[in-house]
């Protein structure tokens, strides 16, 4: 028990469906830790990042949790909707902190029910609500009769925003059609034939990286203009490149973090970590928005832990960490993310995103950081968390 370091357990899918993103996020977490450790860590305690692969299989996530738990880890991140969902009850039972930024499940923002789960930043639900709000703004505030097609890979991550989307469709009266696509989600020709027939005004694509690329190409082959496409945040520079910078023009993306290398934190890392040759990976990944996403995630985590030690002192306990995270106020990591305020009731912290559009050479913000339909999202959150309390699943 004489442990001096702060251990983070990163149980990630490094080998199957999410390999396009996890290495960058791990790299960001490690680089940030290196940066802080060089200055004595958090309140004098070094950060330790433990990484293990779970192949996006829930049971292996559980295994990872059980193993790292015994190695003294109190904060875990799974970066996967299905895995987070599976491990969640154990966290609830054992009282260990689960970081769940940017992945499902959406109702975990309800701090009353999900005491130990911290989806800091926007959830998929919030992001979806914002997407719909954006569409609404493009239709002069009236969504009646507007046709929205939703294409998603048919598993937990893709299915995640459906409750919110359906509720919104009922509320706003737009015409929603779902287009599930079996995993691995690459062979989309069939789905797009259907989508073209549906003739949507908007297509929301809840895909992951390369699947977006396929989707964009299929859109072209089916003669659907790129402007109609809104994608979830998991699309990066590599994907734009694969679609073709010119071809991708007009594509819109729900965005959670600021991209690019201009931010001071990025600059600092480039100088002090990569400059010193201590980077945890390839420097070219610094161009990748997924790297920024990782930094964003861990900047709020580290800040939370800092608060925890400040308030409760060493040694850390899960309860102290919980306290620390719940005392984040208007934290925006120096403008890296939309400001979050985490409380005991709200573990999300606001859930603001914005819509960016690719203009052929760069991303152009189409809106401010916003959180729309908070009432609707809240309502769905309450419904689902109540359901969780009732059935335990």
């Amino acid at each position, binding site marked *: 028990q004489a442990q001096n370091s702060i251990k983070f357990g990163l149980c990630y899918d490094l080998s199957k469906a999410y390999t396009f993103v996890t290495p960058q996020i791990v790299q960001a977490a490690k680089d940030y830790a290196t940066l802080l450790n060089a200055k004595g860590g958090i309140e004098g305690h070094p950060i330790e990042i433990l990484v293990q692969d779970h192949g996006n299989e829930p*049971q292996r996530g559980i295994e990872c949790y059980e193993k790292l738990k015994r190695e003294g880890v109190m904060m875990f991140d799974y970066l996967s909707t299905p895995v987070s969902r599976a491990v969640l009850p154990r966290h609830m039972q054992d009282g260990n902190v689960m970081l769940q930024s940017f992945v499902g499940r959406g109702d975990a923002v309800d701090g009353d029910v999900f005491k130990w789960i911290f989806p800091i930043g926007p959830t998929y639900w919030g992001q979806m609500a914002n997407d719909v709000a954006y569409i609404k703004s493009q239709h002069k505030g009236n969504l009646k009769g507007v046709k929205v097609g939703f294409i998603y890979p048919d598993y937990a991550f893709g299915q995640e925003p459906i409750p919110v989307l359906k509720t919104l469709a009922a509320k706003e009266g737009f015409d929603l059609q779902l287009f599930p696509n079996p995993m691995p989600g690459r062979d989309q020709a069939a789905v797009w034939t259907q989508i073209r027939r549906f003739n949507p005004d908007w297509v929301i694509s809840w895909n992951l990286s390369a699947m977006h690329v396929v989707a964009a190409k299929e859109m072209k082959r089916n003669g659907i203009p790129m402007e109609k496409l809104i994608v979830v945040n998991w699309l990066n520079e590599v994907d734009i490149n694969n679609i073709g910078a010119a071809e991708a023009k007009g594509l819109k993306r729900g965005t959670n973090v600021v991209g690019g290398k201009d931010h001071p934190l990025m600059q600092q890392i480039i100088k002090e970590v990569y400059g010193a040759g201590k980077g945890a990976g390839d420097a070219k990944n610094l161009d990748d928005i997924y790297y920024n996403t990782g930094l964003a995630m861990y900047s709020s985590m580290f800040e939370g832990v800092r608060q925890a030690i400040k308030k409760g002192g060493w040694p850390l306990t899960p309860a102290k960490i919980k306290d620390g995270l719940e005392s984040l106020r208007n934290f925006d990591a120096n403008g890296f993310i939309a400001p979050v305020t985490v409380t005991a009731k709200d573990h999300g912290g606001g859930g603001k995103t914005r819509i960016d559009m690719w203009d052929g050479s760069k991303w152009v913000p189409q809106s401010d950081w916003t959180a729309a339909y908070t009432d609707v999202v809240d309502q769905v959150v309450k419904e689902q968390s109540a359901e969780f309390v009732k059935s335990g699943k």
Partner: protein
Amino acid sequence: MLYRRAGIFHTSYADDRRLFPIPFERWAMLALLAIALAAPFMFSSLALTSYIRPWLIWSAAVLGLNLVLGWAGQFHFGYAAIMGIGAYASVHAARHGVPWEIAVVLGGLMATAVGVVFAFAALRVKGLYLALSTLAMQFVMDWVISHVPAISGGVAATLQAPPMRLLGQVVKSEAGTYYVVLAWTVAVTLFMLNLRRSALGRALVAVREKDYAAAVIGVQAFRYKLVAFAASAFIGGVSGSMLIYGFYHAVTAEQFAVNVSIEVLAMVIVGGLGSIIGSFFGTAFILLLPGQMNAFIAWAARSIGLDVGVEALAHIPYMVYGATIILVLLLEPMGLGKLYGNVRNYLMVWPFGYVRK
């Protein structure tokens, strides 16, 4: 001469068919059992819960698959689905207040019912075509499990398992859970050992070797294929529940997907078709080796100051997994069980190597 056989005379036919006719092996078994019983006090909590317990459970499951694959010779690429059915059924039963022991048996029975459906494919086709139809059945089962909310508990849900209970008492301690698991594995192993020396086992092998020759001595291939699939499904179903109650404590559909079927299959084959001890070896190899190799390589790299990226490190287990299969098959196509058998045969006649002819 550990394996001394001189001076052992079997004086009755029953004696000739004892489980362990060689005294040394009887002693070895007793010793092993003693270690198994003392394990909670000998190993760390991490080893017990993360390695030994899953290993025991998977070994039981692998024995079940070996029954249908190794003994009856029928391809079964949908074993994970069977395990899943057992797991879901028993969890649902227990959640509805059925006593735990009965819930687990119910899980087994439910799996048996589905296993019998698989058997009907085996009655029509053989070989690769059977492999593919069972694989297709696995897909159908996957779909049913994940798309019928009454089973999976809704889209993307993770069904939490109630705690293990014996006679109404909650089994909470790590040791307690371990003993329950151990009891199940020992029971399955004993069953398989008995199978090897009983008429049922012979009939299964007969069906495997030549079904028409089996028929002519009165073995109804139909019936024994059914029995094989049913028995293995029961073992698989209960093992599936054990996996949930004794290890994961929660069920998800992905937990019993196609790749898991392939993994169990790999365990059986790496262990050796029809080999009981091989099933334990095979499970250990496929389940534990990749992770251990990974840790080892990470450690080795660190100690010589080399930096292996997280990504590469994550892929090593898969390379090891694939390489294990390839190497074992190259070394001894009949699997680790045969390798063990070779060593045993060697020791049996040691130091007189050239006894045959």
